[in-house]
Structure formats: C-alpha cells, structure tokens
C-alpha cells in the first residue's frame, strides 16, 4: 500500500484539482468584462500556487517522467 505521505499528497492534489477545475469553468463561462472575473482569477492563482507548494513540501517520488 502507499505510504501515508503519498496518500496525503494525493488527496490534497485532488482537492486542489477540483478548485482549479471549477474556477476554470467559471472563467470560461464569464464574459471578459464580468466584474467577478478578477475574484475567480485570484482563486485560480491561489490554487495553482498551492499545487506548486505541495510539490515542494511533499516531493513526488513516483514521478519518473522527464521534465
């Protein structure tokens, strides 16, 4: 079975993926001049930053693809 750290990283990444995915749907549906657009963009930015942070805190050991 997978070690706890990896399991937590996986669960965390999942939740961030959901936030990012729905933010993306909202941005696609909003007109370019919608006043709420900057707010949703902040959500997307924060989730993206959290994903990057996650990769630093729990490095993805199983990741074997070349950059």
């Amino acid at each position: 079975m997978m070690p706890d750290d990896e399991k937590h990283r996986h669960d965390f990444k999942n939740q961030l993926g959901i936030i990012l995915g729905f933010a993306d749907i909202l941005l696609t549906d909003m007109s370019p001049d919608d006043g709420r657009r900057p707010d949703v963009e902040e959500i997307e930015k924060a989730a993206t930053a959290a994903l990057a942070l996650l990769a630093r805190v729990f490095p993805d050991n199983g990741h074997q693809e070349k950059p």
Partner: protein
Amino acid sequence: MGVVLVVDDIEGNARLLSSLLTADGHSVRTAAGGAEAVRIVLSDHPDLVLMDVMMPEVDGFEACRQIKQEAATRLTPVVLVTSLNDTDSRIRGIDAGADDFLSKPFNRHELLARVRSLLRLKHYTDDLDTAEAVIVSLALTIEARDSNTEGHCQRLAAYAVSLGRALGLNQDDIAALERGGYLHDVGKVGIPDAVLLKPGPLTSDEFRVMKQHTLIGDRLCGELRSLRKVRPIVRCHHERLDGTGYPDGLRGDAIPLLAQLMGIVDVFDALTSARPYKAALPRARAAEELRAEAARGWHRTDLVSTFLGLVEGDRQ
C-alpha cells in the same frame, strides 16, 4: 457526442468532470466506486468510461480489468484518471486493458479532445457490428422470402458448429461456421423471385442464374473485416471435390475446409426438408444419399462419416 460514465469516489471530482463533459454536449452518468461502475457498464453500455484509479475496495485497475474481460463490453473505451503520474501505474493500467490515461489536475482541452477522439473510435466499432447485423438480417430476409427454407439458416449454423466441434476446430473456425450458417446463401438476395421461388426443377439457364448467389454473397461480405473467415464459406459451399461444383470448379484441398463442412450440412438439411416439388426424406435415407455423394467423389468420406455419426447419435 455520447454517454460517458464518470467513476470517482470523491464527489467534487465526479461533479467537475460531469460539468465539463455536459457542457461539451455529452450525457453523463456517475458511479462512486469500481463495483458500481462495472455493474452500470454491463447493464447500460455507456460509450466511454472515465475512471479514477484510487478508490477504496474495487479500484480503477480492477474495474477496468473486469470491463475488458467481458466480450460485450470489451470494446468500451476506458480512460484511467490518476494523479499518480508515474510509469508503474501506467503499466498497471495498460495491463488492465486501459485505452488511455489522464493525469490530475487535468487540462480541460486535453480531456475533451481525448474523450471526443475515443468516442469517434467507439462509434466506428459500433458501426462495424451494425454492418454485420445488417448482413445477417438480410440473410434472414431471404429465408423469409422463401418460406420453404424456414429455419434452414439456424439449423445449418447448429449442424456446422457441432461438426466443427467434433473435428476439434479452433474457436475462430467455430465462430465462422456459425456465422456461415446464417450467411451462406446471403447472395440469394440478388436472385429474381421467378428463379428463387420456382416450384420445380430449374432449366439450365435458370440454374446458371441461381449459381450466381455464391459470387453475389462473396461480394456482399467482401468489405467486412469481421467476415474474413466467413467469405470462403459463402463462395465455396457448392464446390465439389471432383471439380464439378461451382462457382470456380475447385478440386480437392483447394476447397476451403469450412466450406466443405458447410456443403455437407447444407445438402443434408435440403434432403431432410420438404420442397413444393419433393417430400422430405427420412434422416436414414438422407444419410444414404450423402454417403453416395461422397462415394461419387463430391465430399470427403471422413467428414461425411463424422457428421452422420453426430446426426445418427442425435436420433437415439
């Protein structure tokens, strides 16, 4: 556009995928685990399965394996969605029969493009099945056109399959014999009623027309890869070992074995069925007739004996 089954134990993920796919014009069903997914795939035949790998109890690998094991759902494409981007899990996925992979968090455009491409492929394989179904219905239409031959195709398929089994043929050959039973006379669709339904022996001109059914049938099956092994049966089931058969006058081993088998069971079924101009022969008389044809050099004696052994065993 198609019906996509989304499988994920995390509701947010399933909802995210549903929103994206629905917006792209697909119908979406969801399942919360592997066992439920397999059940839905077997009963409702979705066009595509988009499945998370890490789920409690039955995981994505196991569910994928079960879907790919069933003949009825083997061609349903399965995409495994995983946040494990490593080579090991991809290999496990390929071993389980997965058609494609998506890594989480996924790119929306990549997701939709892959789904569209796999659905195109699925519709294409569905069409292949449908094309074969059309040809089989055509064959049954011919049977309906000629009420004298009712049940002939079904009986032939059954006879040919049991003969093939008795001879120890492989599964592919047995399947070809079953289809061949239904399709051997499909070319009769191109024979005019005046000849096909004539309540009496044919003149030599009429017989020349009738012989065309082997060539017409061969052409009809020609385009279908799935009927590759059936074609020789359709074309050659009226050939005779001594070269007096049609359409090509082939001799001996040049006549494909499956066609020889179909030829034998076809003669037997014709002899034991009534026609407007002749009564049905009792099985024992038909067996004698078939043995006489073999002695005349039309069929292989060993094949005729094996077949008659089966039919005579059947009677007791």
